[in-house]
């Protein structure tokens, strides 16, 4: 056991590791030792692990800690030997682990996340919070999708612990596991690395994911935002599903489901039916057919009361009742009906500066009943509710009319500059991502092939017999490279 302890505590060493390379070598040696230990004496490791945990600091010896925890979870004698404070240890680990070290312990780290996700160890509310913070700790930019994301959001959504994952799901994901053409030569511990370099299938940090899982993740994110009534974020998340890249005439049911919800959420967020012009034509066709009742509903929503929009909307909502129920969108549809009058009251601002309550009553109808409200006092109550919610910038005057207040104040030069700077910073933050993507694309097979072709063309154009032989050589080289990468591709595709 002492021997095990000495191995466990051997990293990080007492002396300082100055360069990344030094750190890399030390960490790799350490991981090799731990793996040997795990292979040779799994029993011994598992039995002593609970005691050893007391001597290892989660924040300092993160790699060792991860190995111990995963050994405990996977020991055959589970349950019987689980130490009492295992839950606490796991929590401490997930909250304090060293993000740089843990890059070397992808396998054990993943297995810890998986185990916590099962909910055997910790109640769901705590598990969700721990997992979300651990994923963000590992990748503060939140730009890499892992196989842990989807189970986490599903767990959070099913157990209604959505508040805790908001920081995680509000990050924009731009990297996915299994991207071809990654050629990173810098060591894992380099803090400048893009998250796609150290979170990979090879390092064990993530498993392989399918397109359905990626779409489902965004769909569930949309549902979580809906739960918080954040229409704009929900619309953005659902839009990611609707516009998911497709090829060979593919279209997925998840996309269709997302499209249904997307139409409804857009009505709530902006009151408009947005077109799906950016998706492939064959997907557009499928969506147009499968989302017809929703589109009709949205068209009715856009019409004002004087054009019969309220009655039409009500009729559409009733006619499609079974659709909504089957798609489990009946709640959203009810919300859309309730929002109809509010939306059209807001639009009155475009025409009127002051308007009597009686006029509002006749100009905007409730879609829930398909009729105008009965009394002006109901209108007033509705207006007060909208003003209280911050939806409407206006004042209900005691004389019985509504005055619209000016919308949006001018910013001062300084405020404006600050706002712009904020946006610029966001864009600058993207630079590392762009660089990583650029590197990846520049080394991809297709691009290299294209480059070779271009070069050939150029040389052929320049003429001369000598150039021909070189171009032939290059063609041959590219053939070889082609084959190498093809095998890689087949593995990736399998």
């Amino acid at each position, binding site marked *: 056991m002492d021997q095990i302890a000495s191995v466990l505590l051997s990293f990080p060493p007492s002396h300082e590791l100055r360069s990344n390379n030094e750190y890399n070598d030390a960490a790799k040696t350490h991981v090799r030792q731990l793996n040997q230990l795990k292979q040779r004496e799994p029993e011994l490791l598992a039995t002593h692990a609970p005691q050893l945990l007391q001597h290892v600091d989660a924040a300092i010896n993160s790699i060792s800690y991860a190995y111990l925890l995963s050994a405990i979870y996977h020991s055959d004698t589970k349950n019987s030997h689980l130490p009492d404070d295992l839950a606490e240890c796991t929590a401490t680990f997930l909250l304090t682990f060293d993000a740089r070290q843990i890059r070397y312990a992808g396998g054990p780290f993943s297995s810890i996340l998986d185990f916590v996700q099962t909910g055997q160890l910790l109640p769901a509310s705590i598990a969700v919070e721990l997992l979300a913070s651990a994923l963000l700790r590992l990748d503060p930019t939140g730009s890499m999708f892992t196989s842990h994301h989807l189970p986490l959001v599903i767990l959070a959504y099913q157990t209604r612990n959505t508040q805790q994952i908001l920081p995680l799901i509000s990050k924009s994901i731009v990297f996915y596991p299994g991207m071809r053409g990654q050629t990173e030569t810098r060591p894992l511990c380099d803090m400048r690395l893009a998250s796609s370099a150290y979170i990979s299938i090879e390092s064990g940090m993530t498993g392989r994911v399918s397109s359905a899982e990626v779409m489902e993740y965004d769909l569930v994110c949309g549902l979580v935002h*809906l739960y918080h009534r954040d229409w704009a974020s929900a619309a953005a998340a659902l839009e990611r599903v609707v516009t998911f890249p497709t090829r060979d005439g593919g279209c997925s049911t998840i996309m269709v489901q997302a499209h249904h919800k997307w139409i409804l959420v857009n009505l709530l967020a902006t009151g408009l039916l947005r077109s799906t012009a950016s998706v492939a034509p064959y997907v557009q066709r499928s969506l147009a057919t499968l989302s017809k009742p929703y589109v009709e509903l949205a068209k009715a929503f856009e019409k004002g009361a004087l054009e019969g929009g309220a009655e039409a909307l009500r009729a559409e909502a009733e006619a499609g009742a079974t659709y909504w129920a089957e798609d489990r969108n*009946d709640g959203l549809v009810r919300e859309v009906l309730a929002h109809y009058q509010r939306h059209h009251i807001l639009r009155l601002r475009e025409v009127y500066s002051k308007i009597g309550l009686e006029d509002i009553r006749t100009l905007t109808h409730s879609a829930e009943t398909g009729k105008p409200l009965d009394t002006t006092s109901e209108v007033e109550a509705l207006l007060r509710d909208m003003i209280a919610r911050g939806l409407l910038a206006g004042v209900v005057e005691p004389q019985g009319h509504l005055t619209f207040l000016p919308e949006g104040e001018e910013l001062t030069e300084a405020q404006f500059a600050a706002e712009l700077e904020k946006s610029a910073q966001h864009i600058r933050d993207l630079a590392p991502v762009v660089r990583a993507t650029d590197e990846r694309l520049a080394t991809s097979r297709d691009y290299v092939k294209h480059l070779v072709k271009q070069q050939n063309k150029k040389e052929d154009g320049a003429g001369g017999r000598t150039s021909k032989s070189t171009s032939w050589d290059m063609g041959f080289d590219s053939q070889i490279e082609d084959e190498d990468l093809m095998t890689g591709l087949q593995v990736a595709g399998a």
Partner: protein
Amino acid sequence: MSDTLEAYFKQIEDQGGIIIRDTPRLDLDLYIQNYRGRTRWDRLFLIGRTSTRLCVDALKAAVAEAKRGKDIDRYVQAVEHLRTVLPTDQDAVLDKSWIERTGQANRAETQRLDAELKGYKNNLIKESIRMGHEDLGKHYEAIGDLSRAFDAYSQMRPDVSTPRHIVEVGKHLASVSLQRRDWVMVATNLNKLSGYQNGEEDKVFQPYQKIATGIALLGQEKYAEAAQCFLEADSTVASTHYNEIASPNDVAIYGCLLALATMDRNDLQTKVIESNNFKSFLQLEPHLRKAITQFVIGRYSACLAILESYRPDYLLDIHLQRHVAKIYAEIRDKCIINYMVPFSCVTLESMNAAFAAARKSVEPELAAMILGGKLQARINKIDGLVTTAPIKPRLKVQKSALETARNYEKEAVERLRRMSLVAADLEVRGLRRHLGGGGLPQSMQAQMSDLGYEESSA
């Protein structure tokens, strides 16, 4: 009005046709005298189907007009319409012997011209071939076979030898296209000719070209360009050179109305009222001149009143009919906008006095214009005011700048994401279905509802 007449117009109305019940100012005989050629019948027939007052006279004139020509279809059509309106009239009976005679003559003529043309072709004389085609085209046009006429005229083209011939070909084709209401074809054929008007002789062709192009543009609802064409038509050329398509009065009417609908105050003053060329056209329709003057000096209601009193007449015009409502609406909108220009705040009362019909309010119309973005104003219903909306350019610029920055960021992220998805081979594929995701796992499906969301809203 007799029952048959009533039923006839009821039927037209049901089919979406336009009907005029007011007495128009025009005198049918004087009106039709202005034209020659096939347009006479077209115009008579249209008036017959539109005006309840002139119906019988116009249809009878149409029957007579058709009988003078060789087009049997037209004759039959006119008689049938007349029969529904006035079954007892002596003209309402088909003259079978005339039909037979004319039909026979037409067939014989076609054969003769065809044979002649073949003879010319065998002799390979270019000029004769061209003329043979032209004769055949004219014949087809006269008997109402417009598509063959078009083909025959088109075949003149390979054998033209002088610029004059080219003009003739273009004119024939344009004329046929005009009758077929193929506006694009009219414009294309006439545009080809714009370079051939240098000679003194060809000057007489200028108004024809301008007017026909104008009508074609009008048909395509390009009002501004159409107005320009009519205003440029040369007024010194005798109307006989173009009266198979329009009369000088028509030119004045089309030009004025379209100019009113599309030009601003300055242009109206300089290009219409003060134009030396257009002046002589304007003299033919003094009330329109007055209407434009009223608009220019800011008496919008007077201008609109004049136009309104002539609406029935314009609805009887073959080319204008379909556009009158739209042109009038545009003129009206323009009046309202111009009325608002000098003020930052106008009372609804004064607007009503200027524009609304008795005991009605312009407010719904104003609201529609504001919503349509034509008018930058807000209505204050409580104090009865219409205020021009303050435009804050700074606010606009700031908003759009921030918007652009945000969109840029959003788009950048989205592009990166898509590149990564493609690189990771995660696109949804069509061929292997199960890969594209056959839906969600059953366990999740139950959870996919907005149930959670409902709870929160409850």
